[in-house]
């Protein structure tokens, strides 16, 4: 206490000493506390604050990195979204094109099949007409043949009864004439 009072006397005069005395300042204790506080501060700084600060700095960097990554991811997301949109647009366009082509191909196939069906139907009709014509001709021929047969049979039955001996002789004379012409 005396040492501190002397020091105060030597530097600031008696007024400082008076104030220190009023507040109960004990210079050796204060010095010891300053030293111990410095040591504590040093130790805290050395073994507590520094690691904590390092950890905090690391965390801050990580957070910054995270924020940067997040921004990057956001940008990537926006870019991806834009690309997705473009791809979707292209896919939609391509799909529309494919659908149009499919419609066109289907229309062409339908047209071809319709044409084939029409051709086949026409061929069937032509064949049916030809078959009908042939059948008609055949039936006419058969009818003609049957009619001819009836006519000939009727003629044969009637002729034998109506021929007179003079007719027979005249017909024989005609055959003799044929023989004479051959000579």
């Amino acid at each position, binding site marked *: 206490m005396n040492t501190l009072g002397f020091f105060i006397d030597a530097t600031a005069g008696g007024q400082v000493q008076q104030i220190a005395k009023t507040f109960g300042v004990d210079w050796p204790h204060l010095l010891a506390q300053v030293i111990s506080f410095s040591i504590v501060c040093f130790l805290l700084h050395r073994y507590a604050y520094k690691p904590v600060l390092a950890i905090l700095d690391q965390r801050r960097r990580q957070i910054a990195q995270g924020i940067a990554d997040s921004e990057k991811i956001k940008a990537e997301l926006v870019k991806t979204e834009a690309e997705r949109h473009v791809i979707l647009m292209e896919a939609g366009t391509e799909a529309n094109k494919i659908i149009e082509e499919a419609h066109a191909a289907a229309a062409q196939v339908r047209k071809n099949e319709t044409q084939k069906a029409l051709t086949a139907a026409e061929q069937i009709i032509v064949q049916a007409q030809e078959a009908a014509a042939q059948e008609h001709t055949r039936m006419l021929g058969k009818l003609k043949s049957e009619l001819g047969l009836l006519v000939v049979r009727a003629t044969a039955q009637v002729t034998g009864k109506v021929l007179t001996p003079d007719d027979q002789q005249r017909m024989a004379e005609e*055959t003799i004439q044929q023989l004479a012409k051959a000579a």
Partner: protein
Amino acid sequence: MIRTTAQAKRKARQLYRCCLVNGRLNPSRAQHAASIVLELKRRGYMRLLKEFQRLVRLEIAAYTAMVESATPLPRHLENRVRERVQNTYGAGTTTLFKRNPELIGGMRIRIGSDVYDGTVEAKLVALQRNFGGSGGYRQNP
């Protein structure tokens, strides 16, 4: 020795030529030749005789006029036919008359492969063929 049909035909033609007199078959020669073949009875003689018979039949048909008529012909008409046949095919031609009611009317003369047909049947057959039939009007349909 006759082993094949071709040999039989060849031999039969030779035998047939031997039986010809003035280009016509002599019946007595043909009979004599056939009897000789029958007596000898060499191998294949039946083939030879069959072929010889066929040639003789052709010769007879070539010089035989078959006259068919629906009704019997009057005598004078038969004589005219016979005369006309001999004038056309030679004096040695034989004329045979046959009644065939199926002819209906008229007369048909067949000499060898020549046919002179003036019958109603022939005209009816021609008529039926014009109608597209086969000509056999007597057959049932």
